[in-house]
Every structure is written in C-alpha cells, then in structure tokens.
C-alpha cells in the first residue's frame, strides 16, 4: 500500500532532519570546533539550502541538542535495559560501565561541542545540566535497588551519591578524552573500583 501524503511528509521531514544532524555530526567528528560551526557549514555538508535548514531547525543549537538527546537515549536505554535489571553483582556493573564508557566515547565530539557551547551559551549551559542529570535518576534507583538487596557501600543519601558518581565519571571521562593523558583503561579501572566500593562496599 502506498504511503499517504501525510506519511510521505513525515518521511521527508525525518530524512532532511537526519541529513542535518548527520552533517553536524560529520563536521564535529572531522574536528571542527563548535565555535567554528555555522548554519552555512551544516547546510553545505548536508547538501541542502540554508533556507531549508531553517524549515527544520531554528538554529545550530537545536541540532546539537538533538545529537545530545540521541546520546541520552542511547545511554539511558542501555542503563535501563541492563544495568537496572542485572543483579549479578560487581561483574555486571563492570560490563555496564564499560558499555557506558564506550557509548560516551562514541559521542565524544558531540560531548566536547556541548561542553564548549555550555560555557558561552545559556541555552546549552542549561542543556548540559540536563544531560548530567539524565543519568542521575537511573543511578539513584540502582543504588536503592542494591540497598534493598542488602548491598550497602556507604549510607550517603542515594541522590547525592548518584550525583557525585555521575559527575565524577563525566569529569574523568572528559579529561581522558581531552587530554589523552592517562589511558582510558586505567581510568575505567579506577572509576569502576570507586563505583564498586561505594555501591557494594567491597
């Protein structure tokens, strides 16, 4: 059966949107700093007219936020599908942390752009906060779940603990990505040990 005109419109819309988000992703992956990204450059990369860009997005921030949402969806889905249901102890935590790390690494040019944008743009600053907080809630639930199952590393308030752990992981991850100083394996190890001791107590 042929698509109705309406669904054709939706398909067309999502196709163009995908081209635009893909174009920004490609610019960022290619090393263009966020400060140098323009709507013209995105439209050129997407092979569309500048006017068409504005039919789909109000500005370049909206495209970056769309990419940030993809990161949140991928990560939170991963956390909820595995982390929150797996109760195999520290070993499953390790696997999930590695998966979390790999997802973040895959999005590292987007993360860098968001971080850079957040320092100069109030809208992106607010979004950056949302991004961190999106991981806090599932982590808080995980902590409470572990405590109900008898695991208790510290008796700190679960929400505060989740916040500290997420912020630490975010910072360690970004430092590793930015500096390339310590190898990511060492960092993952240290961060994992920290999570394990704080959540499981041993």
């Amino acid at each position, binding site marked *: 059966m042929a698509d109705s005109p309406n669904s054709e419109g939706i398909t067309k819309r999502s196709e163009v949107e995908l081209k635009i988000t893909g174009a920004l992703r490609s610019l960022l992956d290619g090393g263009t700093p966020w400060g140098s990204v323009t709507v013209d450059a995105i439209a050129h990369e997407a092979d569309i007219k500048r006017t068409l860009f504005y039919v789909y997005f109000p500005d370049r921030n909206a495209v970056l936020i769309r990419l940030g949402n993809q990161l949140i969806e991928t990560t939170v889905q991963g956390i909820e599908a595995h982390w929150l249901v797996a109760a195999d102890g520290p070993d499953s935590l390790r696997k999930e942390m590695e998966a979390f790390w790999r997802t973040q690494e895959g999005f590292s040019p987007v993360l860098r752009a968001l971080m850079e944008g957040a320092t100069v743009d109030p809208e992106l600053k607010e979004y950056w906060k949302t991004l961190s907080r999106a991981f806090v809630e599932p982590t808080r639930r995980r902590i409470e779940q572990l405590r109900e199952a008898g695991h208790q590393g510290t008796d700190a308030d679960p929400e505060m603990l989740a916040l500290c752990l997420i912020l630490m992981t975010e910072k360690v991850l970004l430092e590793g990505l930015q500096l390339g100083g310590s190898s990511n394996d060492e960092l993952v190890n*240290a961060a994992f*040990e920290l999570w394990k001791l704080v959540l499981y107590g041993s």
Partner: protein
Amino acid sequence: MGLYFTFMSNVKLGKRAAHREDVEHRIVEALRSLIDGGMLWRDVTIAEITNEAQITRTVFYIYFKDKSSVLLRLGAEVKEALHEITHDWDTSTMGPDVIRRDLQRYTEVQRKHADLTRALRDATHLTPEVQKFWKAIARDFIAPTTRRILKERAEGRAPDGPDAQMLAYCLILMSEKVAFEALHYRGPDFDAVLDTAHQIWLKMIYGI
C-alpha cells in the same frame, strides 16, 4: 657628577617600575570588577577593561597581550590559595577528619573565588593557555594526594586498594566537579554534596 646621574637614573627607573605596577594593578582590578559584577567571560572585551581601568587601549597592550593574560594573572591568586591547602601534606598525617577539613577548605576557596573560577572555566574552552593553567591546578592536587594515600597504606592506617594515583585522580576530579556544580548550577545543597564527597573519600581510602 657620575654618581648624581646614576642616582637620578635609579630614581627614574624606580618611578617607572612603580608606574608599571600601578597600571598593571589597575588593569587586573578592572577585570576583577567586571567578573565580580557578573559579566560572562565571552562578553568581556578589551574596551570594557580599559574603560573600567580608565586607560587607553594602547596602554593596555603595553602591559598585556590579551584579556586572557589578565585573567591568568588573577587566576594565580586562586592557584596560590589552593596551593596553601596542600603545603603541609607531605609532613602531616591524613586521617578522616583532615580529609573533611581539607575538602571544606577547598570548597571555601572555590566559593570565595566563585566568579573568577567560572570565568577561568569558561575560558578553558576558548584559550589553550587558560586550559593548561586550569588543568594544572587539579594536577597540583593529584601528586600530593597520591603520596598521602600511599603513606596511609604503608603505615597501616589504610588497607590496600586501587592504584593510588588513579584513585587520587578520580577523587580530586570528583571533588572539583561537584564543588563547581554545586556552586555554579545552584542545584544540590552545597554542604550535602560536601558530606557525600567526604563519605566517598573515606570509603575509597579507609574502607569505612
């Protein structure tokens, strides 16, 4: 006669140095005033600084090459205040209460220089020199923290645990990040975050 000229020339040099110091001070204080007044780093311009310092643009460039150089001069104050916290770490014992005290001191410095640290952090994404400076501040804590953890373990006050340097790395970055977030995003309660960070330090180092 020769002595007289030497004397006069020293007087002139002294006056010139004093003048130089005075102008530099005015420029640095002008930037401080703009930042403390809530101006975001991206909005700070040389024109704003010279206007605040009541000097010309030409004079500004005699003393500083750009606005980041002035910011780094101010940043040295934060660096020194933070350095004060670690100055006796190699000759003293750590312990749970000392960790709490030092975390408190660390956050107090962050709080006292809140506007300045925000400007420094914002500038890290725009200027490599500031980024290097900002990273070095955190690094200054990692080596002494590592030594302290190793000393606690060697003297039997703390059990063996994860690699001391990597652990110090995580703990310092966590403390910096949570203090900064609590201060600037005004989200969670500052003291509650400090309490939690303290508990994490104790768990990771002493297992308690």
